[in-house]
């Protein structure tokens, strides 16, 4: 192995370097300089994101433990964009509340460590690397969830998250051990060759799937979602619902489409049932929510159900549509969470009732919120429409018309609760509406990037075409 091949880990090494730089900065900076640390971190990460889009070779390292290809590369870039938006959106909150508690560096470091774990997780070539990545991705988030230590609800959410994550990881590794028992290997390519349908391997798959289903918050493993989202700081909740979920979907897809390919008659059935349950439960629970964070939590549960439609077409089309949908979903959900964040930072209000009459006081924020929600609901010409349409197409291409029908029914149900928020913002008049406020530059930039993504990702077809062309790489 020559040193040059380490460049394949450019993302990981770059992010590690940023984390180390931040530590050094934290140690040697004066109290006053720490104010600038957030800007420093954002600039470093922006550079990291930009570098990430340079082309990278395909290859593997450490005897196949770590591999990378164009699709993974693209996906990491997408996650980076998401995290960048998220950082921009939470910069003000960090400055206002966390800097005083002298914990802002740790916040960013934990966030980046978790992202590093996701890089490793989706690049893994064997179950060991996968598990390490999974844990590295999860544990820092548990600390982040409980970050607002002054709030009891945040600590409670942290405990809930760490307990359910531990359970999920345990289940996953039990499944992995069963798979190891049937195949004698933990390497993805070896397992893919020797795996056959047997009771043990199916059991192994089910346990493994349960573990990841926790992370994606699929029904019936979604119970932690709403409570944790509500208790966590908004930026952490949006990190969980967007980045964490996206990465987990990606690795689940890679493993199902490559390693578990021999088991596809089994897992398509499981995915089918779980998808229906997830869509219905997520949607029906979202209908009655009052708190915006809980509302978006259930909406993101339902969205996960839609993503599963792409799994039913276990081929290039399915891969491309899933990756595309995740990218679109990142923009849409970050748009929605960004507005919630902005309003919460300005006025400390998080309920749907508080949003009544918002359009008349804050038209731009309301408009972005409406675009984001319509994109989540799949209304053209916003990106979400294309994402959903392609997912349906992926499922229909394998003849799952009933599934598509159920999904479109659910899309209609979901439209109802998205319209409830739109109704509060646009239709209602409220003398006590949240007064006009001006978002600060970072927040504004974060919202604008999300808005551009929502508007353009679908209409600009080369994005999808590019994803499709690189999806053949596994």
């Amino acid at each position: 192995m020559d040193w040059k091949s380490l460049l394949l880990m450019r993302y990981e090494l770059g992010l590690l370097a940023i984390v180390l730089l931040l530590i050094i900065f934290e140690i040697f900076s004066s109290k006053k300089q720490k104010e600038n640390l957030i800007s420093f971190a954002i600039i470093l990460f922006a550079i990291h994101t930009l570098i990430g889009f340079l082309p990278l070779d395909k290859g593997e390292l450490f005897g196949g433990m770590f591999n990378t290809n164009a699709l993974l590369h693209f996906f990491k870039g997408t996650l980076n964009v998401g995290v960048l938006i998220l950082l921009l959106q939470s910069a003000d909150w960090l400055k206002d509340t966390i800097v005083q508690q002298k914990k802002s560096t740790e916040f960013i470091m934990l966030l980046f460590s978790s992202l590093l774990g996701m890089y490793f997780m989706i690049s893994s070539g064997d179950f060991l690397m996968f598990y390490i990545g999974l844990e590295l991705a999860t544990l820092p988030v548990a600390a982040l969830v409980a970050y607002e230590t002054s709030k009891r609800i945040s600590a409670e959410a942290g405990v809930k998250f760490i307990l359910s994550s531990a359970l999920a990881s345990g289940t996953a590794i039990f499944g992995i051990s069963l798979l190891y028992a049937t195949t004698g290997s933990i390497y993805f390519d070896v397992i893919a060759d020797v795996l056959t349908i047997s009771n043990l391997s199916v059991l192994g798959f089910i346990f493994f799937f349960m573990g990841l289903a926790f992370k994606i918050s699929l029904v019936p493993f979604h119970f932690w979602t709403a409570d944790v989202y509500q208790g966590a700081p908004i930026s952490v909740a949006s990190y969980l619902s967007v980045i964490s979920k996206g990465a987990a979907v990606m690795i689940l897809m890679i493993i199902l489409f490559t390693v578990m390919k021999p088991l596809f008659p089994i897992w398509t059935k499981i995915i089918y049932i779980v998808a229906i349950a997830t869509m219905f439960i997520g949607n029906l629970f979202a209908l009655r929510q009052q708190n915006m964070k809980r509302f978006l939590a259930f909406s993101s549960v339902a969205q996960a159900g839609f993503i599963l439609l792409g799994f039913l077409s276990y081929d290039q089309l399915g891969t491309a549509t899933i990756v595309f949908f995740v990218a679109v979903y990142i923009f849409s959900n970050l748009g929605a969470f960004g507005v919630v964040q902005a309003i919460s930072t300005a006025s400390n209000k998080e309920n749907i009732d508080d949003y009544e009459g918002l359009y008349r006081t804050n038209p731009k924020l309301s408009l972005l919120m409406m675009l984001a929600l319509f994109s989540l609901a799949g209304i053209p010409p916003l990106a979400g429409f294309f994402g959903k349409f392609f997912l349906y197409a992926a499922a229909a291409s394998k003849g799952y018309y009933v599934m598509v029908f159920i999904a479109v029914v659910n899309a209609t149900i979901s439209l109802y609760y998205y319209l409830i928020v739109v109704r509060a913002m646009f239709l209602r008049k409220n003398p006590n509406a949240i007064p006009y406020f001006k978002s600060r530059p970072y927040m504004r930039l974060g919202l604008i990037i999300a808005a551009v993504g929502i508007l353009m990702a679908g209409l600009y077809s080369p994005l999808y075409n590019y994803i499709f062309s690189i999806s053949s790489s596994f």
Partner: protein
Amino acid sequence: MDILSLFVIVPVLTVLVLVITKNLKQARLVSLVGMTVQFIMSINLIFAYLKERAISTDIMVFTRDVVWYETFNIHYNIGVDAISVVMIALTSTVVLAGIFISWKIADLPKEFFISLLVLSSGVFGFFISLDLFTMFLFFEIAVIPMYLLIGIWGSGPKENSAMKLTLMLMAASAVLSVGIFGVYFNSDADGGALTFNILEIAQVNIPLAAQNLFFPFLFIGFAVLGALFPFHTWSPSGHASAPTAVSMLHAGVLMKLGGYGVFRVAMYLLPLGALNWSNFFLVLATIGVIYGAFGAIMQKDLKYINAYASVSHLGLVLFALLMINKTAWNGAIIQSLSHGLLTALFFALIGMVYGRTHTREISKLGGLMKVLPFIGAVYVITGLAYLGLPGFSGFVAEMNIFVGAFQHPDMFRRILTVIVVSSIVVTAVYILRMLGKIMMGPINNDEFKNLTKATWYEKTGLILLMIPVVAIGVMPFWLSEMLKESIQPFLERLL
């Protein structure tokens, strides 16, 4: 730039300019300019089409085909035939009239015109699309602004009506999307590539089982928008709550998307399915016609009367389409046009009456002809045209439909036709009763004596809609001649 894409681009540009306007005066001026351009373009399109038709034998003219999503073979594919040309002309007329009628919109004027124009860009896009994907996309773009339009500027139980309307129409589009996938994934039945292109799919022999399975999805998906019984319930409450211009646009144009879609997509692409299902849907359409007519008799609110009348008259369009012959189809298209204009007139007039008297209840109105001569006269003319008086468009449309429907030799269809024809009588009852009560007779409220006369912008809007009503009524052959060639290729698929 081709002349068809402009029909989408002009409204979008107008919306972009509207974003920077500051008050009602600027907003309405910008929309008026934009839509006048659109209107002139649509008139120009009719003549350009006639010129092009003389030298071209293609089904569609002015076509343009740009690849959009290669993977799915999605194209931005546009083109028009006579039917889309007249529909575009109808749309631009109603939108322009709608802007005149909304001259004094008070609350959030900029947003009102933006939503209205977004809606109309969806409608225009729908009529020029030859690709199922873009058609579906424009279909949804046309539906969703209704939520804001009714919810913000509406009256009465507007929030519920808006929600009901939006959800029902989006559910319909959901059903439609399943049908579209069914067609798309069967479009390679003859060994070709999968395609969304309507003209290409029409060359493919889609297997009978798939046709029977997916026809109802496509049909219901579109026909909900055309107020097919029993999926019409969104329509009365939605129309009653909507502001005037929106009712006009919605009943006048948006509901025509239903019939147009059934004709252009459902029946054209799945002809065998259409033949197998036609009896079933004929019964539903017949029920719709009769039910709508009797529903209108029972109403006390002017807008509800018109909304139920729309259910009845649009049921007639679906009924005629399902009869599958040239005369009936000719009638169906003319009925779409005629109903679009007349119902827009009705809603505009109701809006004017309501804006002055602040009531829409028939029992509280009376003798308005004496104080509002212009509005009253137009109201009477519209009513008479609506019930099918010769000399106006309604007569031509209904005549064609009934003659066409009766041409069928089989007894089942004859019986249905007889039932449907009887709806004319019911129509006459509710129209004449309404006219007699609110326009004639004594003025039953002293406040009505000082009502303001029709203003110039109201008159312009009304006259704009009235001209084509009379033109179609007096010179139907000109229109039929134009439609004839475009109906033929579609009819051949089904015979």
